[in-house]
């Protein structure tokens, strides 16, 4: 599976990052890069991740992350990296 971009958007509080990273580590999804900003109290985080070693399918990871987001009150989205590379790189 190709690299994916995971975005997390929601109200900032302690432990958002830990919970997302724990899920990724438990499922053998490697994190290549993380950036994060806080805009008006809202947490904006982006990860470039590599699920190549993960036994889970894209669909399963995407669904799990969405559920995790609902549980901790943030919105988590996973997309294949190419859409961003195509749009912003010549």
């Amino acid at each position, binding site marked *: 599976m190709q690299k994916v*971009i995971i*975005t997390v958007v929601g109200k900032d509080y302690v432990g958002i990052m830990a919970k997302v990273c724990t899920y990724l580590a438990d499922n053998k999804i490697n994190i290549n*890069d993380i*950036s*994060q*900003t806080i805009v008006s109290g809202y947490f*904006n985080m*982006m990860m*470039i991740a590599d699920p190549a070693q993960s036994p889970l399918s*894209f*669909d399963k990871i*995407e669904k799990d992350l969405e559920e995790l987001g609902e549980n901790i009150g943030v919105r988590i*989205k*996973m*997309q*294949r*990296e*190419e*859409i*961003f*590379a*195509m*749009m*912003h790189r*010549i």
Partner: protein
Amino acid sequence: MIHISEVYETNEMIEKENLDVRTITMGISLFDCIDSELYKTCDMVYEKICRKASKLVETGERISKEYGIPVVNKRIAVTPIATVGSSACKDSDDYIKLAKTLDRAAESVGVNLIGGYSAIVSKGMTPKEEMFIDSIPEALAVTTRLCSSVNVGSTRTGINMDAVRKMGQIILDTAKRSYGTDSLGSAKLVVFCNAPDDNPFMAGAFNGITEGDAVINVGVSGPGVVKYALEKVRGESFEVLCETIKKTAFKITRVGQLVAKEAAAALDVPFGIVDLSLAPTPAVGDSVADILKEIGLEQPGAPGTTAALALLNDQVKKGGVMASSYVGGLSGAFIPVSEDQGMIDAVNAGALSLEKLEAMTCVCSVGLDMIAIPGDTPASTISGIIADEMAIGMINQKTTAVRLIPAIGMKVGDTLNFGGLFGKAPVMPVNGFSCEEFVSRSGRIPAPIHSFKN
């Protein structure tokens, strides 16, 4: 490495500015389904469409999920049916059987529209093609997913005025035949000049005779994205305005290119083209009219509208061509009335007339699109409107089209409501002076002098 701001920008476009892939359209050749027995032709047509497009919808949905971008429509375009049925069909009723077969196949594979109930009669009509055209009103009334188009002229052949005259009556008959559904049949019938073989957008999509066995063509959209980008450059020079449109068009088209390649690979069908059109929908914030307003017009239709649209159309093309390896189809800004809330508002405000829309079609893709006219408009007047629009296409070497909806039993000021993608159309006034004698002449308008390029 992708930057967080780029991710944010892309997702804003998708979530707030209505960026989407409007359609993945699979073109399917039906030449190998031609037979002299109608039941055999129907069986082969059904089987081939179901076989080729069996994974079209699920592939579109998978791509949508993985990239996080809506793929709004999955559709099919087939070889013009007038040709496919010419051996098997002995009368108009036989063509109706083919229409029902197409509708059934479309339902079976789960696409919402299928195009190609079409005839290419730019220079002349065979008796079978006349028979086919006669079947259109009934075909569109007894099917739900079928779309029809007739190409009646081209720069190379001139305009087939016999076909133009016939289509005036057919449009009227189609509206009458689908009276119970607000004349929805006419919303699925397009008359073309210089129709492209690879257009992925309905209702005018068909798989042209120049195409291979199957092909994937993709139509992107994103009027909202352009509108939001222009909000940030209010009051700036034309240079800044044009650069902003170009850059935005580039980004939109890149997404189309990505999706087209991905879909073609997944379906094991060659990639054809990306149609880099700005196609509005009735949704708020998905309007070409709003872009024109953002450029500086109080309402579309105001003086300056044609220039603003010309500028927009040109910059969309300039930005888009570099983003895709193959562009085609209609590629430009669409200006349908019923499918664009801003256009509807402009008509209701008295800013936009049929004549101004005609002028606008000289500088953008397609033509007089999704316009409701009074139900008592004579067929000859509809033919006259078609002839004008075809002349614009023929002389300017561009595609033009007419999709008029005679609102049966309605008058100016009333509104047709199709619902969904087709939107709603305020009935617009039509010039009441007659062109009966003009369109009653037989034969064709010769090809223009600049078509002789050999």
